């Protein structure tokens, strides 16, 4: 693991919870949608908060794809869950929200999980054949 890889994991951690929060805020403005109003669900992306949330989730997606290109799925998912902890800490120290004992316990468990997985190797399975050579051959 090098600094670049840690930054990519940080990108996965930060973009996803911020994007989800923006989507939640936007969907509260859009209101309840039933299965009969599927077009309304498609139109929900015109809400600015939902649109901003989608932008953040695109940032998450790019970081996530990059992380999966050099690490296992069972490494990337727990390792990037530190975002939940970051959100709670921002809520406590920047927004001065009260954090219950149960939530602190949750933060401790997530942190333990992240510590567990990041202390091991990022890849345990064999990497498949490199597509680059194949694509280069196809285009030559």
């Amino acid at each position, binding site marked *: 693991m090098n600094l*670049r890889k840690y930054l*990519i994991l940080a990108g996965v951690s930060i973009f996803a919870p911020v994007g*989800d*929060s923006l*989507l*939640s805020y936007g*969907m*509260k403005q*859009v*209101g*309840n*949608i039933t299965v009969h109003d599927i077009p309304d*669900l498609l139109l*929900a992306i015109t809400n600015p908060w*939902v649109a901003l949330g989608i932008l953040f*989730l695109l940032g998450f*997606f790019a970081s*996530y*794809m*990059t992380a*999966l*290109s*050099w690490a*296992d*799925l*069972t*490494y990337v*998912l*727990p390792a990037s*869950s530190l975002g*939940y902890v970051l959100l*709670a800490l921002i809520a406590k120290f920047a927004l001065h929200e009260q954090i219950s004992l*149960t*939530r602190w*316990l*949750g*933060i*401790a*468990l*997530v*942190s*333990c*999980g*992240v510590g*567990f*997985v990041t*202390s*091991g190797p990022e890849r*345990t*399975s064999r*990497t*498949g*054949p*490199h*597509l*680059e050579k194949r*694509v280069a051959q196809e285009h030559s």
Partner: protein
Amino acid sequence: MIPRAMSNLNAWLAILAVVLSSSAGDVLLSRAMRKIGDLGELRRRRGLKFVMLLVVRNRYFLLGVICMAVSFYSLLFGLSWNDVSLIGPAAASLTFVANAFAAKIFLHEHVDRRRWAAALLVAAGVVLMGV
């Protein structure tokens, strides 16, 4: 006034849809990226355009994106019926556990005790943070 039971039923159906589609999407995307190789390395050697073309031409990637789109709209559907404090932690924690099983079965990852412990600790932690 919308009955609470119907709201909860729709929310849990949405959570189930998010977990299934998200796990399928994660496995497909992981398989695609594993086949392609380190994106950072490839970008340095061949450029961003080459990497992007390589990614979007991969059929596992395209199938994974479709699953992720289903997951995204299921999440929006769920959020329109219940609070993010229920939908977010429930979907995320169940997805952690489902992904550990799926990665072992479909990606042949070596999910040892350390990774099971990590997945379960994070899943439990996410639930506690949401209540």
